[in-house]
């Protein structure tokens, strides 16, 4: 599903957190969003999810204006997005239950998603019994179980160590290849952005769009192209 952001401005109280953003995201594209801390990356995602009221401009999701939240646009959080009192299985079953999938099928589907993220055998664990990386796998399984058409990820691997982070990036790419979905991915990590995304949007400190850099070979084993890397970094420093 495509997204279109038209002249988007969002205020927190008096302060404009985002101003005049114009951006299109194509169907099944992965777009990374980066920028200095406090530049409104999360605000942009939450607006796309329909969690925040838009001050002016508009957001179109498959040409329909976004007015509220929907199962079509799922949000993935940096951490603690899982419900701590529910077992891993019951966390993944939640979006299925919201979609009114019959109970018996919920269980089968949840288990299938969990085995796809490599967590077969952990169904009955509580989130706190898992490592940070495993919890993010559960979150990924839960998000995919809801079969959203857009995935909005807010620094989902930001709290993980380098090794786990690389494994999670590959997992995301694998899953995305099987079922290409539109992904908007907020990250601080330039290499992560250029590895995962078709394009990288750089926001300025005052919430404007600085530039959009195309990644020439996303999701390949080769390292990011030095000129593209430099271009994103320039954008960040200037921002």
């Amino acid at each position, binding site marked *: 599903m495509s997204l279109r952001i038209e002249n988007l401005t969002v205020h927190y109280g008096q302060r404009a957190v985002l101003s005049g953003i114009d951006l299109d995201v194509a169907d099944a594209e992965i777009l990374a969003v980066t920028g200095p801390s406090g530049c409104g990356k999360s605000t942009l995602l939450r607006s796309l999810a329909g969690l925040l009221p838009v001050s002016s401009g508009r957001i179109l999701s498959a040409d329909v204006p976004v007015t509220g939240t929907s199962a079509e646009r799922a949000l993935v959080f940096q951490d603690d997005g899982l419900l701590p*009192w529910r077992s891993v299985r019951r966390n993944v079953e939640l*979006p299925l239950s919201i979609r009114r999938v019959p109970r018996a099928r919920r269980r089968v589907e949840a288990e299938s998603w969990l085995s796809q993220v490599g967590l077969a055998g952990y169904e009955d664990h509580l989130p706190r019994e898992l490592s940070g990386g495993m919890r993010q796998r559960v979150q990924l399984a839960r998000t995919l179980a809801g079969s959203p058409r857009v995935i909005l990820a807010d620094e989902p691997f930001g709290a993980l160590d380098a090794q786990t982070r690389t494994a999670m990036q590959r997992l995301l790419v694998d899953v995305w290849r099987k079922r290409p979905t539109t992904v908007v991915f907020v990250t601080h990590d330039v290499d992560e952005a250029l590895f995962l995304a078709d394009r990288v949007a750089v926001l300025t400190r005052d919430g404007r769009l600085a530039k959009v850099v195309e990644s020439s070979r996303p999701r390949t084993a080769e390292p990011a192209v030095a000129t593209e890397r430099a271009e994103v970094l320039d954008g960040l420093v200037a921002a």
Partner: protein
Amino acid sequence: MTQTLEHEPTAVAAPPAPPRRRFSRLAVRAGSIVAALVVWELLTAFDVDLWLHFDRLPTPVEVARDLGYQLGTAVYYQDLLDSLRRIVTGFALAAVFGIGFGTAIARSRGTSDVVQPLLEVLRPIPAIAMVPIAILLFPSNEQGIIFITFIAAFFPVVVSTRHAVRALPVVWEDAIRTMGGSRRRVLWNVVLPGALPGVFGGLSVGMGVSWICVISAEMISGEFGVGYRTWQAYTVVDYPGVIVGMLTIGLLGWVTSAAVELLGRRATRWLPRGENA
């Protein structure tokens, strides 16, 4: 991982007590109670009157004899069940309405504006001060007593629920809503289970206050019930009976508080304090 590492030094610093030392500690604890009983026996058996009138109090032996006698009578159990029924009814109502109002106030500005001022005006009044109103208002004493019990537990539950609901992290709610979940879904799947640890704090406090109030209400206006029996024993100069009543109240309070505590632990097993807490 890091948690086990952090715990190791304390484990080294305080190794489990060897069996002999554990036994001697147990002996000291038991001895402390026995000593208190002996002091009580001596003070009362020798009718000590040193500003405090121990000569008027029954001896522990008299109390034990009276307890043994009362345990064989039907009226003892009747009183016990009456008090228990009142507390359970009032407390259950307080739990339901307290959690309901607390959640509504925390979640809806409209409800908060309407209900909160009323609650703030009523809250400083101790439940026991409402006894006259309860007697006037309700057709029977029984309902009045249950009302007092209800009011006593209601406020702690409302306040703790309100705080617990307000303190919930937004991510959980955002997660449910971006899965397409409705407000009701958020309420049942996030707000109520997430607030439960805080709510149980209020329920524990509420149970304690409820006992104070049910006993006082029974003393003032009751027919049957442990509080009524205890006060009646006092008025007919049956002092061992007073102490038996006190012990019974203590036991009931302990059992019901333990029940709430146990239920709370069961319901909040997911908290990070771990299985052994």
